């Protein structure tokens, strides 16, 4: 997709302005139903497109991402462009600096079409905790696009952005990518700078690409992965550029299947994932089966750690420095309580309360400390697993996209749907979700390839091999720009 647009621009088949206008028109046509964008920025997009056109007209070479229309999740800071995390508490907030990822892509000449919808502060699995309502699935608008990066997935799946950046704390890139039949890469913790990403759970958060193809994910990952002195947990990309090796042969690669990942997974999803295992075998890969009993505890460990970190990170919203502030109050404590109670939605408040609970005296040892200890056990289990395989193949989500309204009705039941995605964040590993089939109702099914730290190139190579072998799983919808 990205390369196709690049070639169109270079060969002057279409100008960047024409292309950008096409995307903006399609956003206008479909956003009422998809609710993918919460803020469209046509003026800035067209101004950037004109710059790219001038460059092409003067005979200068352009980069691969230059002039390609894209989007950012609304928790990635964009200087002067409203960034709300889809929360009432940040309405009107215009960052005074750029996130490093946007700084890099802007320098590369990307055309930002606008900011996309998400669960409030990235807390949710359907994008319906958003202050602006949920994003619809381009395959069937009665179903959600997933979450928390639901808006990016809906936009990319619906072809109203060529690609986008999301963030993944417990599956928020991979799950919506899986629900919308597209590709989502959660990079290794530290590979991509988090500077300017509005924090949810800092030891788990990671920015990554949501794209139509595996090749696109490799192109975008190469562009955004870098060491950043502004992020003290940054390590940058270790190893080769992933685009250079994405089309390599995968003969002899060892595919690991941890049986725990297939427990409790719906039959249609299991069947599709096991079908992919067969494809890998036919490509000359070896399959190894093993157990990872530590995964059983991943979900509670994740929710304890994520909520604990969130309760601390979200302490900054006090109505003093930015965002919403309660209109009437009596004293500063009252001002902060009113601001937060009126500004945060239900799910955010629940997670702040739970995080405060597990960190409070008397519960700290039983929950937070125990969860950190188990986190180490899970890390070790992955270390052991990667001695026997090159990557682990697993379902991304145990089911296909839920219907709108379903996820918000029962918090614990919704938490359970994250069971396959959270272990990767706990262990700081990279994983890419790739479409691997459709259920009887035509809703996409996704699988994830989980790699050891900094093996993005390897998992993208394996994902690309599958994509070439099973192209029928990568489908366009009725929406958006047709190139």
């Amino acid at each position: 997709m990205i390369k196709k647009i690049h070639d169109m621009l270079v060969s002057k088949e279409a100008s960047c302005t024409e292309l950008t206008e096409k995307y903006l028109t399609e956003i206008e046509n479909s956003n009422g139903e998809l609710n993918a964008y919460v803020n469209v920025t046509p003026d800035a997009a067209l101004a950037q497109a004109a710059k790219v056109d001038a460059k092409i007209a003067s005979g200068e070479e352009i980069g691969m991402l230059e002039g390609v229309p894209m989007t950012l999740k609304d928790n990635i800071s964009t200087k002067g462009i409203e960034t709300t995390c889809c929360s009432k508490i940040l309405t009107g907030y215009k960052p005074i600096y750029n996130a490093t990822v946007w700084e890099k892509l802007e320098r590369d000449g990307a055309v930002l079409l606008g900011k996309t919808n998400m669960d409030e502060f990235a807390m949710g699995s359907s994008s319906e905790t958003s202050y602006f309502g949920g994003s619809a699935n381009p395959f069937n608008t009665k179903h959600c696009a997933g979450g928390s990066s639901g808006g990016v997935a809906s936009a990319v799946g619906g072809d109203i952005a060529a690609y986008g950046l999301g963030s993944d704390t417990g599956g928020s890139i991979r799950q919506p990518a899986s629900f919308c039949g597209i590709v989502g890469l959660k990079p290794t913790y530290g590979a991509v700078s988090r500077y300017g990403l509005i924090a949810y759970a800092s030891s788990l958060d990671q920015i990554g690409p949501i794209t139509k193809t595996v090749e696109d994910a490799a192109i975008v990952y190469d562009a955004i992965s870098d060491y950043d002195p502004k992020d003290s947990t940054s390590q940058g990309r270790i190893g080769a550029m992933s685009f250079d090796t994405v089309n390599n042969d995968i003969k002899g690669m060892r595919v690991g299947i941890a049986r725990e990942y297939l427990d409790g997974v719906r039959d249609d999803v299991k069947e599709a994932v096991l079908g992919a295992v067969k494809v890998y075998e036919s490509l000359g890969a070896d399959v190894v089966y093993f157990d990872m009993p530590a995964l059983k505890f991943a979900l509670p460990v994740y929710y304890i750690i994520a909520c604990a970190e969130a309760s601390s990170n979200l302490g900054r919203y006090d109505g003093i420095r930015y965002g919403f502030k309660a209109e009437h109050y009596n004293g500063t404590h009252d001002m902060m309580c009113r601001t937060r109670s009126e500004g945060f939605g239900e799910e955010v408040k629940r997670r702040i309360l739970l995080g405060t609970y597990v960190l409070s005296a008397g519960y700290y040892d039983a929950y937070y400390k125990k969860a950190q200890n188990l986190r180490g056990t899970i890390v070790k289990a992955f270390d052991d697993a990667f001695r026997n395989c090159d990557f682990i193949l697993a379902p991304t989500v145990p089911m296909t996209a839920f219907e709108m309204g379903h996820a918000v009705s029962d918090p614990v039941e919704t938490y359970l749907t994250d069971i396959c995605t959270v272990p990767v964040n706990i262990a700081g590993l990279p994983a890419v979700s790739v479409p691997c089939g459709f259920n009887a109702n035509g809703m996409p099914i996704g699988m994830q390839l989980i790699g050891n730290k900094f093996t993005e190139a390897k998992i993208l190579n394996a994902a690309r091999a599958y994509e070439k072998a099973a192209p029928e799983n990568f489908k366009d919808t009725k929406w958006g720009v047709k190139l």
Partner: protein
Amino acid sequence: MVTKQDVENIAILSKLFVAEDELDNLTKQMQEIVSFADAINNAPDSGEEFDNINNLSNVFREDVVVPSLSAEEILKNAPEQGENHFLVRNHA
């Protein structure tokens, strides 16, 4: 067991108000979430300490002045400001 009193206490620590009519439902939900988290109590304790999962170490830099944001920029998003300060009124 999470009690209503627990929820009220945590809410104070979290600087959140819980309305009287939300308290029952929220206590029930908190109890459900905490029972779900209780699953970890059945996990065997590895006996090891894991403090640094992501292999982080302290990052130092030379103690030199580098450009930073101006006070004017920093105050841009403040709901109220005055005389180069964030303004917090006691009553409104």
